[in-house]
Every structure is written in structure tokens, then in C-alpha cells.
């Protein structure tokens, strides 16, 4: 780097700036778009910073489609899936991390293998089954598959978290008369709260983002989730971009807040799940 006209530190800062712009600019641009009037949007050359910021597009976004209902459905489905996934994954992870079972690696491999199953192939039989048992257009139609979708990564995160906590504390509690599950409930789970939190956020985001099954199973107006509902603003040939942008901003903000607050935890969870 001797001949370079920028010091290594300056080059590093420049590279970081490029990464930040690459990652955040699209969301920022949608925010700008949502604050512009239709008239300002159809000017050429296009404007960058909104000249006369308006919240009108947000009013339209909520009036043209039941956006609040889409948000409610998405939150409900994601929270239910998160609750169910955490319960199921915690039990399984405890068994895999703490009990001496001969088929531990096989069981873990089977759970990981399901994460490589293409969701699209499950679409056909699940659609047929859900239709047959009348579960189309219900929260359950999405909550059950979303739970399976996040089960592998949650189990991996929790197994590695449980294994990082010494078993001595639980053993001590059991000597004091606690049952195995009592020790898990009173000692291990409180200590594992950060891991549970990480697994929970991953499940929530996975469920919040899912589109294909939501589009296929829950097409009734009252049960659409946000990613599905947000595609309804466009007509066959019309694209009301400012209103779509406002709806997108409404959809991005909740998850962006989660990410900003819990960034370190989410990143460590993702990398733990990805590396196994």
C-alpha cells in the first residue's frame, strides 16, 4: 500500500461507506419516495431529497387497502409461529444438548436436512391437504409450515447455546430435589434467555418475510399477510409508486426496529445457524 494515495485507514473507511450505502440505500430511497407527491415523482430529472414532504401517501396506503389488517395478520402469524417454534425447539434442543442419547447426531442431521427441503415442493401436497381439511384461509395454514421452516435453525442455535452453559448448576438443583424438567425450567431456561431471544427473532423474521405459502394458502381478503397484501396496490397497468412505497415503509419499520435493537444477537444467531 506504499504507493497508494489514500492511507489504509481512509481506504477502509471508504469501503465501509460503500457497504453501508449498498445495504441501506434502497430502504432509504423508498422512504424518500413515500414522502413525495405524485407530481414530484413524475418530474424529470428526478428529485432526490423530497421537496415538499407529505404524509398523504401513508393516508392513501391505509385507505386504499386494509393495510392495518395486513400488519395485524403478519404480526399474529409471526408471533404464533415464533411461540410454537420456540416451544418445540427448546424441548428438542434440551434433549439433544443434555441427555445422553445414542442417536443424537442422526436426530440433529434429520432436523438440519429438512432445512434444505424446497418449500415449493411442499406447496402442492400441503395445498391439497389444507384444502381437503378446510384449513385454507386460516392462521394455522401458515403457522404450522412456518414453524417447520424455522425449526432447524432454532434447534441449532439453542443446542449450541445450551451446550455453552455448564450442567453443574442444574445438577446442583437436582441434588436439592429438583426434577430434571424442574431444573431445566428454573435454572437452564433463565440462563438461556439470550439464545431463546435470538432464535425467536430469527423465526419472527422468517415468518414475517414468507410470501409463497401466504400467497397460495391465505388469499381471502381478511387473512392476507403483509407481503401478499402489499402487491395489491398495483393494478394491471398502474403502479401508484408513492402509495406502494408508503406501504413498504410501514412494512419495513417494525422489523428494522427489531434488527437495530438486537443487531448483535441476530448476527450471532445467524452465523451459528449457518455454520453448522
Amino acid at each position, binding site marked *: 500500500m506504499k504507493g497508494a494515495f489514500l492511507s489504509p485507514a481512509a481506504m477502509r473507511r471508504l469501503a465501509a461507506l460503500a457497504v453501508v450505502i449498498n445495504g441501506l440505500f434502497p430502504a432509504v430511497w423508498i422512504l424518500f419516495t413515500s414522502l413525495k407527491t405524485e407530481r414530484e415523482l413524475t418530474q424529470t430529472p428526478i428529485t432526490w431529497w423530497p421537496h415538499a414532504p407529505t404524509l398523504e401517501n401513508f393516508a392513501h396506503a391505509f385507505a386504499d387497502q386494509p393495510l392495518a389488517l395486513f400488519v395485524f395478520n403478519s404480526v399474529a402469524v409471526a408471533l404464533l409461529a415464533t411461540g410454537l417454534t420456540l416451544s418445540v425447539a427448546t424441548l428438542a434442543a434440551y434433549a439433544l444438548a443434555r441427555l445422553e442419547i445414542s442417536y443424537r447426531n442422526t436426530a440433529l*442431521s434429520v432436523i438440519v436436512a*429438512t432445512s434444505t427441503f424446497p418449500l*415449493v415442493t411442499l406447496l402442492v401436497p400441503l395445498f*391439497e391437504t389444507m384444502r381437503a381439511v378446510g384449513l385454507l384461509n386460516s392462521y394455522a395454514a401458515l403457522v404450522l409450515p412456518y414453524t417447520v421452516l424455522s425449526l432447524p435453525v432454532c434447534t441449532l442455535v439453542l443446542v449450541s447455546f445450551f451446550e455453552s452453559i455448564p450442567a453443574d448448576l442444574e445438577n446442583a438443583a437436582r441434588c436439592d430435589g429438583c426434577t430434571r424438567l424442574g431444573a431445566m425450567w428454573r435454572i437452564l431456561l433463565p440462563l438461556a434467555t439470550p439464545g431463546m431471544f435470538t432464535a425467536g427473532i430469527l423465526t419472527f423474521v422468517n415468518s414475517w418475510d414468507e410470501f409463497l405459502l401466504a400467497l397460495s394458502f391465505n388469499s381471502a381478503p381478511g387473512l392476507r399477510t403483509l407481503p401478499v397484501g402489499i402487491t395489491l396496490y398495483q393494478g394491471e397497468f398502474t403502479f401508484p409508486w408513492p402509495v406502494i412505497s408508503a406501504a413498504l415503509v410501514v412494512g419495513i419499520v417494525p422489523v*428494522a426496529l427489531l434488527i437495530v435493537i438486537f443487531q448483535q444477537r441476530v*448476527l450471532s444467531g445467524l452465523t451459528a445457524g449457518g455454520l453448522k
Partner: protein
Amino acid sequence: MARSWRDPSEQALARVLLAPAFALLALIVVYPVGRLLLTSLYDDSLTSGHAARFVGLENFQLVWEDPSFWSALINTLLIVLFTVPGAMVAGMLLALVANMPFRRKWPVRLALLIPWALPLAFVGLIAGWFFQSDYGIVNDVLRPFVSQKIIWFNSPTLSFAAMCMAIVWKTSSFVAMILLAGLQTIPADVYEAARVDGASKWQQFWQVTLPLLRPSIVVAAIFRTITALQTFDIPATMTRGGPGDATSTLAMYIHQTTVDFLDIGYGSALAVVMFAISMVVSTIYLRNLRTGN
């Protein structure tokens, strides 16, 4: 602990604790896949009015002769061919920057996490707006360099290219996070030794970083391949498969056949083909995992 694996109560408890997870997997994965293999052998169209009829491998014969299938399959394979290497290279660059010693780590961290957290369907819509021909920002930036405005979504090639760029942008952040985790496990003294031997930064990357990062690279590449094979959300929201069927994927064709046309038998046969392709990739993945351990 040595004796406890024979402890019968512990074995029973393990079975009870693992039961819900495996019951869910059986209900939502194993049973549907079995059902899929079965229905692919039937003429089972919910709009035809007649009951399902066993037709053997006839659906697969129809798949083989179906030009829409081949066009969707080729598009899907092209997406794999372009976006997997694209996301790997972009993800590597992002990971290398994210691994630099900054005092404040949160800006770069957020720049990786936000694209990961955005729903693919949102990214498709956002990209559609970016590449809009009159007021899109891409054409605005390109204006000084091109003689006339580019109408991205009228051209099969340009639509496909724009879609691939959106996919690479969206998926490279997850690749970057896997690679970043790998980079952080490389001990600093390896680089120290390379520097003492007179290796330049460039040589260090090729001769130290890349070989030591191989396990993470393989995991990321295979994960990316599996998700690229299933591409649905971004073309569905960005191009709706158009113009014509230039950006239509196998997943979109399966969805259309099943959900719109209610042709369960044919949709199943298409899904079985998709299943077979991704099983090949997952098998490589699982084998790699085992030798990796």
C-alpha cells in the same frame, strides 16, 4: 455421565422431548412428500369434475413434452448460474469489509442485516421501482452514459438481468454473514506468519484466507444454490414472469399449475422434478457437512 446413557428414564424423557419436533416434521414434511410422490402418478385436476385417476408416469411424459416446463427450468438454471457466483463474490466483498477492525461496528452490521431482513417480495417491488424506465433511479444514474432511455421490462434479456441484480443484492448479505463467521475463526497469527514470509495482502487473501475459508464458502454456495432453485418471490413481484415468460421460474410454474389451475396431478409431477434436482444439491451439502465434522 458414562452410565447415564443406559438410564431408561433418560431415554424415555428424550423421546418425549423430541416427539413434538419429529411429529411436526412428519406432518409437514414427510407426509406431504410421500403424498406428492403418490399424486404425481394421478390425473388429479380439481377443475375437471371427475375423480382422480391413476395414470402411472404419464404426467412425467407430459412434463417432458411441455415447452413451458423447459423454459421455466432453463430460466431457473440460468438464475442459479448467474446469481450464485454473483452473490458469492458480492458476499465475499461485504464480508471482507465487515471483518475490518472498525471502532464502530454497527453501521456495517446493519448494512448486512437490513437486506437480509427485508422480505423478498418487498425487494422485488423496490427493484421494480428502481428499474422503472421513466422515473427510476437506475435510469437516472445511467442517463449521462446512454443515448436513449432503457426500457428494462420490455426486453427479455434486460428484465432477466435486472431480476438477477435484485436477487444478488438481496441474497449477498446472508452469504456475507456466513463468510464473516468463517473469517472470524481464522487466527491472526496465521496472517502474521504470512507477513513475516513477505506475502502481500493480495497473496495473503489467495493463499491464506481463501483456503481456510473453504468450509464456509461451500456451505454458503450450497445454501444459495438451494434457494436459487426455488426462486419465486422476486420475479413474481418485480416482473411477474414477463415479458412473455422470460423471467418465469419453475417455482412460479408449479404455483400457477397448482393454485391457479388446481391441477394437483401435473403440479405434483413438476414438484417431483424440482424435488429431485434439489435433493442432488442437498445430498452434496449433507455429505460435506459430515466430512466437515
